[in-house]
């Protein structure tokens, strides 16, 4: 039995809405449809200012194209089912979670602190337990990057509890 046949057999046991082919196609079509609907609220320019087509026409065309092509991809998946993917491991979700924390901390506390905490969190979740290396990735390296960007590029980082100390605000 070849792989495609095995795949077909495994996929047959799942209801269609659990299959990756359906989930991915559905999400793309759903988002495209929402965006397509939102294009109808774009302002319309009067004919005298109109350059060829209305500003909404081009994105509308693209979204319709994406919907049609996604439908074709879904249709073709009946003949050739997609490979079943391995379940995503815990470190993936923890890394993803760290992005959310990064956004929250950089917005409320400090940009530098957010980078530092994300680095140590990700490094730890990925299996690093040696304290010296955790300090390296979470403190020493971000400081080097921070100072490098600050001095070479003259970058002014957004204010925060640690950044303010550096800028002596």
């Amino acid at each position, binding site marked *: 039995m070849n792989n495609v046949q095995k795949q077909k057999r495994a996929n047959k046991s799942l209801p269609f809405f659990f299959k*990756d082919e359906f989930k991915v196609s559905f999400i*793309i079509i759903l988002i495209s449809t929402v*965006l397509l609907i*939102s*294009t109808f609220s*774009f*302002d319309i*320019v009067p004919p005298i200012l109109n*350059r*060829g*087509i209305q*500003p*909404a026409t*081009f*994105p509308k065309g*693209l*979204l319709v*194209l*994406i919907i049609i*092509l*996604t439908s*074709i*991809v879904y249709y073709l998946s009946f003949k050739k089912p*997609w490979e079943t*993917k*391995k379940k*995503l*491991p815990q*470190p*993936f979700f*923890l*890394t*993803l979670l760290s*992005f959310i924390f*990064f956004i929250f901390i*950089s*917005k409320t506390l400090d*940009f530098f602190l957010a*980078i530092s905490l*994300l*680095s*140590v969190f*990700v*490094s730890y979740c*990925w*299996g*690093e337990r040696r304290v010296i*290396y955790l300090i*390296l*990735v979470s403190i020493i*390296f*971000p400081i080097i*990057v921070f100072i490098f*960007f600050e001095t*070479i*590029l003259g*970058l*002014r*980082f*957004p204010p925060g509890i640690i950044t303010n100390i550096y800028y002596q605000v």
Partner: protein
Amino acid sequence: MENLSLMFAPLVSSKLMIVLVFGTLFGLILGVLPGLGPTTGGALILPFTMTLDPLSAIVLLTAIYCSATYGGAITAVLINTPGTPAAAATCLDGYPLAQKGEAGRALGMATISSTIGGIFSVVVLVFFAPLLAQLAYEFGQPEYFALAIFGLTMLASIGEGSPIKNLIAGAFGILISTIGKDFMTSIERFTYGINELSEGIGFIPVVVGLFAISEMLTQSTLLDQVFKRVALKAVKLPSLLDYKKTWKTILRSSGIGSFIGVLPAEGGTVASLIGYSEAKRWSKNPEEFGKGSVEGIAGAEAANNAATGGAMVPTLALGIPGSATTAVILTGLIIHGVRPGPDLFREQPEFLYGIFGSMLIANILFFIFGFFGAKIFARITLVPNKLLWPMIFAVSVCGTYSLSQSMLDVWIMLFFGVIGFFMRRYGFSVVPVIIGLILGELVEGTLRQSLVIFEGNWLLFLTRPIVVTFFILSLIALAFPLLRKKRK
């Protein structure tokens, strides 16, 4: 001839030589580290290029492009993992040969064939880019529109993976380019009241997100992977017998790579796969392929490095990137106020030939560094991912923030990182998104200007011979994967 002498300008400028040496070394490090590569590296270093003059900035980016493409071979040979996607075919014979205790011979062949492929492609670039630019003088708005469409369809058909998924990704990239104020009427599109989005979405946050952050997420799923590293004593130059065995393969793959590179596609990756399969097809000993054939290594490596110069041809002559990395280089040109296209050849030949010359020198430099320093570069692969990726994250965040000092860019980078991860997981290449994003304004702008010229009559597109030719070529490009499937 006068212009050709301008190629050697980098040799007499100590500043350019320093930039070239740094770019080549940095590119080698990027190439050696799996998951990074010339595209991510180029995007990360782009903010730093703002401190340089335009020529030095582009020289830096092109040096990274050339050497990172070669650097991928070191990892492919020693740990059976391509440092860059373009080195995937090199694993097939490089690693088996290294396992036989001939890692030095495998890397020697990879180094020499990469160098020859790279130099060959620079020659192609020097002769064909001006010719293409001359041809582009005839192009008006409708022709540029048809050319951009042709580029996108080629990307779908020649790129890796499903052509339809590639088309979806390309359309998604163009759609991103429509976010913000419409450049012709100033009407806001997809901004949803967020003022920062009025200026549109920057190229760098999207590239860093799609390549670096999505790769970080991918690496988080591969933590149980164990690499077996083959020991390397020293890189050996190929023997006379190896040269006799491979010179035809190297030349053939150099030609294939340069040709594939010119077409807007995933440049080096596709070129190396075709170069490898053609090497096998023409070989007297095809049974040796997959077991450590030097012809296999030569075929893949000459082709992927030859694609570098090839991909620069449409980038410089037409402003249409031939690969994801050249899209980054094109962005570098634009942010430094250089507009690629026919006028650039007429107005700034010293700039262009400086780039050509620096690419030639970069190929020689990575030969020297690769030959004498491969052992040191191989040690970089020992840096564990659990330390490397948090550091890359810090650089990605600061680099993205630095461009317009906007936190929104950082959120956009993270958003596209997650999108890129899921795109790759479900077989959608991220390269068409990048090309679509950079071609988006050109596609829409030329379409609308053409319709103004044609007074809204779409059929008038078909009265222009060059447009019709590009449309026919686009149809062939779309039909090509179907024909290939039927033949199989």
